[in-house]
């Protein structure tokens, strides 16, 4: 067969040469950036004559008589035909990533956008490649309709808060399923420390990503069945393309600074306001004339040169951080074999002192066509990533830690020095910051000593690889199988010095090492059918997928260091105990199928079905059946449409609808359904005890999703509009159903399927080629999502689920029937009483009560406004204070190109939600904490209207330190200039014979400004990370930094 083809080819060449022919040459460039495209197939229309472009995109072809045009084809670009006029024909290829021919990666396959009838968004890898981030997911903010991505804080390598069409569960994760080259991978934070985060997605070099496809509706995701209730991110890594080897070097360097830090009092201001509070307390306590009660407790300290000690703690906690990232790749191939090889080195600093991220990675992908019917493909990536950070108080469950850097930065006293005159740390007898001449006891640490004397790291060693093959079978069948492995070893190390000033001083120093191995493999096989018969196009898919996760973790905790010389676990310690031990496994087995049918490129139908088994669910309900149907109608293909006037303006109109049922069984505990006994000790005797009451009927959460959409292309495809309405009803929510405490069940709860909620909304995406001229172009893309979340049922009696921020005294959120998940919660306040400067609260009866932290003997701290004694505000008086989930969000990106310059401007926005600015409570805290300069607006005189109560020393209630108050709830609406990038493409003539084919230099800024009425550090902050039940809390966390980057992309 092959010989015959070759012979025919040779023959035609010969015939062509024999006839009258002429030579035509030209250059092929990419439409979006004018870079030359090597390896483009150039063919004389209607003839078998063809050549390929060289590395500079040049070609020369002998064109026989009678041929009037050339066809240009290249993978990933739209085929174009250019008429021959003269001896030079230049062509510009537009990438296929626009219009209905765009390829969409769907579960276990691809479809064109025309065929696709669900809801999905594709994000090009180019968007994440040059972003100064640690993991690709951080760079997706604002890029796709329906996808909300927020950075919870400014610590490096934090998992962002990702919500695809809202919060889709209460107890289980709302993080989407992330599938990398076919294998679902671990997500979330895998660090065992609340100081340093470790997002395993940072193990993927962003530059290796070809595309990110976001599957949003059930019809698209249900092929992932039980795993897909929160949406799916399908990551495809780069692979080689036919053509000469292409070498690309990308590098960037950046600097980052903290942004929007609150302005704090200096030493003088600190003493003034603290002493005012001390004096007020004395007066209110009836001790105005009692000389044994102090009138002031805060006094200055002077340097040797006589100047006032005035410490700016920001200087010791924040810094200007420098980062660099290098990436090199080689790719290419011939007709049968393609390869891609890349290496990455990243060394990034965070703007909090000691915060570091380092990655080294290598990736290799290869595709080979063994025979006409058999292809194999393989890939592998190895990486190490290293994360280090001091405790910033920003990660979940660290908000109130006394070692949290963000709180230390604002609360430490400015009128005492960091060091004593002799150069030693300024410390108290217990190792906290020494208070100099101030006559108060301090419980906060000297940040400088604390940081010097401790370290928290987490480091990954990971190999991800896959091998697969495709066999073409007769009758249009094709068999595909892929085995993928993902082996991730993490070591989490914590060291606290035995020296005074370290938080480990009281236990004589400590070191904890915990090593975890996450072993994950997946084997998926599909049999597919794809055939066109006249106008009928049918595809079918039948598949089988097994995935297994094994997680082992073990470690040890050592205390009492033999010497303060030791800075790691390997040193000598007196006592060692086991720490962090666990071992579990989880498996999924899935059978799935999909059938698509389209007629005449006009009518499209897709149906899919999946049966899933999940080992973590109850013995009686491990399997669930999921599926969806969707349909599309390309109206513009209809004959009648083509006669309508509108068809001159509106090129393409497609309607689509889908319905599907997906599940969620991603319980974090691999044995959640079982009744278990665990072992412990009673003194030195071994014990067994009931540690978990199971539920053999624990089943999937299911969501029924309906999706209606329309895709429209206008003005020669220059404007594309996608609109989608969706409704997602989630039932059988897995909740920890509270059990009567007198039953003595562990944790007084059993996981059960109770409760339901919905997410309803619509999304709009518009992309437009606003201007497209030879030297100037402007592309814009805008997306908007409106979403409404409402809980419709909860566990027995629909009782509220209270969400806590770090401690059980901070009941910060409530999930209540009739409201959105995790609404803000706390005591309701009504300003400050102008008569006496006391904070006014509203109790559960709706009555106004006021609070004074200090009162005379016989008086009550809590009174009605008329002065009579009132009950103290307690949790039973709390109100729901506002929805914490954004009701609308989206992004706007603009790309301009002028000659060799390009400019990208990316804006994100969100709103309709409220944020608990808990940090404000700390900034107004009336203990020995420093305050912000706004404290000057405190109440001082009768009749004064202000929101800051009279300063009373040790008042922890009036400003929200003891428990959340509504005075700190603010609207979260914002618009952020996420990134601005200005690039310059060096003209290719500059390179001469250097071998360089393209070069671009760029400079960019991230988080350049934030337009918001929110007065906290950042309205996207989330002290509880990705938690569904406690969103919208900013408390004692570091905000996001502002980053400036310069970079270069060079192609060889």
């Amino acid at each position, binding site marked *: 067969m092959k010989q015959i083809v070759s012979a025919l080819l040779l023959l035609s060449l010969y015939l062509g040469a024999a006839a009258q022919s002429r030579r035509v040459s030209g250059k092929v460039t990419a439409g979006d950036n004018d870079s030359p495209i090597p390896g483009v197939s150039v063919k004389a229309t209607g003839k078998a004559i063809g050549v390929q472009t060289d590395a500079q995109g040049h070609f020369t072809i002998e064109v026989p008589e009678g041929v009037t045009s050339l066809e240009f084809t290249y993978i990933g670009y739209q085929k174009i035909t250019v008429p021959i006029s003269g001896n030079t024909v230049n062509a510009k290829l537009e990438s296929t990533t626009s219009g209905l021919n765009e390829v969409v990666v769907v579960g276990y396959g691809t479809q064109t956008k025309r065929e696709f009838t669900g809801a999905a968004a594709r994000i090009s890898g180019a968007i994440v490649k040059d972003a100064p981030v640690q993991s690709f997911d951080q760079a997706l903010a604002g890029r796709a309709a329906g996808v909300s991505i927020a950075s919870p804080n400014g610590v490096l390598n934090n998992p962002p808060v990702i919500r695809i069409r809202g919060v889709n569960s209460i107890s289980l994760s709302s993080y989407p399923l992330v599938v990398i080259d076919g294998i679902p991978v671990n997500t979330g934070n895998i660090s065992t420390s609340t100081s340093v985060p470790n997002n395993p997605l940072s193990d993927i070099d962003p530059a290796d990503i070809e595309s990110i496809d976001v599957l949003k509706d059930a019809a698209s995701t249900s092929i992932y069945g039980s795993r897909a209730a929160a949406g799916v991110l399908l990551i495809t890594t780069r692979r080689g393309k036919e053509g000469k080897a292409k070498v690309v070097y990308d590098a960037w360097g950046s600097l980052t600074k903290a942004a929007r830090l609150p302005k704090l009092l200096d030493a003088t201001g600190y003493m003034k306001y603290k002493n005012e509070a001390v004096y007020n307390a004395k007066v209110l306590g009836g001790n105005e004339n009692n000389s044994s009660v102090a009138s002031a407790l805060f006094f200055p300290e002077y340097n040797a040169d006589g100047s006032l000690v005035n410490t700016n703690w920001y200087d010791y906690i924040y810094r200007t951080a420098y980062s660099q990232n290098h990436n090199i790749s080689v790719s290419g191939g011939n007709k049968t074999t393609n390869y891609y090889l890349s290496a990455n080195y990243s060394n990034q600093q965070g703007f909090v002192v000691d915060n570091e991220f380092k990655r080294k990675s290598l990736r290799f992908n290869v595709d080979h066509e063994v025979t006409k019917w058999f292809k194999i493909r393989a890939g592998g990536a190895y990486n190490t990533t290293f994360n280090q950070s001091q405790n910033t108080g920003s990660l979940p469950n660290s908000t109130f830690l006394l070692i949290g850097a963000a709180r230390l930065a604002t609360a430490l006293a400015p009128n005492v020095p960091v060091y004593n005159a002799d150069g030693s740390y300024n410390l108290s007898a217990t190792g906290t910051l020494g208070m100099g001449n101030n006559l108060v006891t301090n419980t906060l640490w000297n940040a400088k000593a604390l940081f010097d004397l401790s370290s928290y790291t987490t480091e990954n060693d990971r190999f991800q690889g896959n091998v697969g093959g495709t066999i073409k079978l007769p009758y249009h069948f094709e068999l595909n199988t892929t085995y993928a492995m993902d082996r991730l070893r993490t070591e989490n190390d914590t060291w606290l010095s035995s020296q005074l000033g370290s938080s480990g001083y009281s236990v004589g120093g400590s070191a904890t090492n915990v090593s975890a191995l996450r072993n994950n493999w997946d084997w998926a096989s599909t049999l597919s059918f794809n055939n066109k018969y006249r106008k009928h196009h049918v595809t079918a898919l*039948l598949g*089988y997928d097994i995935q297994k996760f094994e997680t082992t973790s073990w470690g040890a905790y050592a205390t009492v260091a033999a010497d303060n010389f030791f800075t790691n676990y390997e040193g000598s310690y007196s006592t060692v105990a086991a720490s962090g031990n666990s071992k579990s496994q989880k498996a999924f087995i899935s059978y799935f199928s999909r059938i698509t049918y389209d007629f005449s490129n006009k009518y499209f139908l897709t149906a899919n079905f999946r049966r899933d088994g*999940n080992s973590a669910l109850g013995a009686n309900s491990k399997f669930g059946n999921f599926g969806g149907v969707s349909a599309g109608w390309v109206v513009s293909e209809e004959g009648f449409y083509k006669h309508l006037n509108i068809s001159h303006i509106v090129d393409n109109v497609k309607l689509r609808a889908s319905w599907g049922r997906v599940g969620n069984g991603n319980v974090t505990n691999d044995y959640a359904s079982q009744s278990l*006994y665990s072992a*412990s000790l009673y*003194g030195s005797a*071994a014990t067994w005890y009931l540690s978990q009451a199971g539920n053999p009927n624990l089943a999937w959460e299911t969501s029924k999703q309906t999706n209606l959409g329309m895709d429209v292309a206008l003005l020669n495809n220059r404007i594309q509009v996608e609109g989608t309405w969706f409704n997602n009803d989630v039932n059988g929510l897995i909740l920890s159903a*509270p059990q009567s405490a007198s*039953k003595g069940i562990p944790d*007084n709860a059993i996981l059960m399927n109770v409760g339901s909620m919905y997410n309803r909304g619509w999304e709009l995406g518009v992309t437009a080629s606003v201007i497209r001229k030879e030297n100037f172009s402007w592309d814009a893309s805008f997306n908007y999502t409106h979403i409404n979340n409402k809980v419709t049922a909860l566990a027995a009696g629909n009782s509220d689920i209270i969400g806590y921020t770090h401690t059980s005294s901070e009941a910060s959120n409530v999930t209540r029937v009739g409201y959105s998940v995790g609404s803000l919660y706390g005591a309701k306040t009504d300003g400050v009483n102008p008569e006496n400067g006391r904070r006014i609260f509203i109790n559960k009866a709706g009555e106004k009560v006021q609070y004074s932290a200090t009162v005379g003997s016989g008086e009550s701290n809590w009174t009605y406004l008329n002065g009579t004694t009132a009950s103290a505000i307690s949790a039973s008086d709390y109100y729901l204070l506002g929805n914490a989930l954004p009701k609308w969000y989206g992004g706007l990106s603009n790309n301009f190109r002028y000659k060799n310059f390009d400019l990208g401007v990316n804006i994100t926005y969100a709103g309709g939600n409220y944020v608990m600015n808990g940090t404000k409570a700390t900034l107004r805290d009336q203990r020995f904490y420093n305050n912000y300069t706004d404290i000057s607006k405190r109440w001082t005189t009768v009749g004064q209207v202000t929101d800051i109560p009279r300063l009373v020393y040790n008042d922890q209630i009036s400003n929200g330190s003891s428990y959340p108050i509504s005075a700190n709830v603010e609207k979260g609406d914002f618009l952020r200039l996420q990134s601005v990038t200005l690039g310059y493409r060096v003209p290719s003539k500059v390179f001469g014979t250097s071998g360089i084919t393209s070069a671009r230099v760029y400079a960019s800024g991230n988080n350049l400004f934030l337009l918001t009425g929110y007065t906290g550090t950042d309205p996207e902050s989330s002290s509880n990370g990705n938690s569904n039940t406690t969103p919208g809390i900013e408390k004692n966390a570091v905000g996001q930094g502002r980053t400036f980057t310069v970079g270069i992309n060079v192609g060889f």
Partner: protein
Amino acid sequence: MKKIYLYIGLGILLGGSSCSEKDLLDTVPSTSISDANAFGSATRILGLVNGAYDAVKGASLYGGRYLLYCDVRGEEFINVTANSYTAYESWNNSYNSGSNDINNLWSQAYTAINNANIIIAGLAGSTGVIPDTLNAQYTAEAKYIRALCYFSLVTVYATPYNADQGASKGLPLRLQAETDDSNNDLARSTVAEVYAQILADLDAAEANLPDSYSSDLLNTTRAHKSTAIALKTRVYLTMSNWTKVVEEAAKIVPQTTAPFSTTSYGVKHALQSDITTLFGTTYTTTESIFSMPMTSTDSYSGQSAIGYIYNANSEYYLNPSGILGSAQWGSSDKRRSLLRVASNLYYLKKYAKASPYVDYIPVIRYSEVLLNYAEAAAQTGNLALAANLLKAVHARSDAGYTFADGDVATAAALVSTIAVERRIELLGEGFRSGDLLRNLQTIPAKGSSSLQANAVEPSASNYIFPAPNNELTTNKLY
């Protein structure tokens, strides 16, 4: 040829299926066992028994904090930190249904009760794994644990028995193993019914508990016959059933004059010559009838450890107008060496070990039994015996002290003197508020210049702990 393709294809596709669904999906943990295997071996059953004791040792219960709550409610201590994580709300009697102390104590005690019920249910018939005699012994230990927990709850969460002879609503009386989501609703039994159950359990326990175990450690940390009897003296004392106190106490205190010691059973319980050896030196003497063992691998730290709260972090000092100033507590009294002074303030150092906090927590001591017996003897007119018992306890620590005649002359004087002696002898061991409540006395006011706690009358709602939210919201019949 085509057929070969098809076979290869099907082979690969089905190859995956060769991993059995069952193997993959029916995962079992390797670090815990399923309920089906919990009673699978003699070692595991013993492990379950120890597990129930360990639940009693929970931080909120006899791991230490229960003692703390009961002590600081009374007038002996002054709080300095106003920290609700270290029993401040117990101290100033300001708790509500949402308070941590209230919810944690309730949950922990009922966890121990459920663990005991699981053992009782699991051993209801012959197991085929352990001999029936051992079966009976373990059941008796479980009943002892259940009785101790119900007694610990009913004395703080329910109206005192003496207020109305137990007619008030008491506790939900859970007597069956709970391992699933049924039976959330259970009405409260009366206080009298709860006491009846406690005594029935203790009688049953006494019948089947061993005389002694093979080591001092086991004699101190697991229940034997005398343990159940000793607890009965406390229960009957709380009910003011003096005759029964005398009857039970006589079993383990057969003498009428000092020295007193148990003779009838295996463990010869007796007072040690120096009380301080019990705290910090030898935790397993015959005076310690029942204690919670602590080791460096199984102890509490930080705010869960009462040694940290009382001593290391100095959060409570002794109220100068409490028992500290009592004339009965002489300066040469050995028990004063269980205090330390700093800046003229006295701190309790019965739990004095620094981290790790490995001081055993005492639950029942022989000296308490002697004082229980003394009080009942005084109440029943046996003044000589009462005085002998009282003096035995006092003289052990302060041999030179002589009780004034007026202090021991009448039954009423004796009862009052014994009450004072209890405050000295059992300070910091969780007795003070229980003694106030069983006598329906007002909880006195106390305080310092900065923190004040008001007096609480027996009629006040905060005289007893409120029911916790975690019961109120789930048990509709409460």
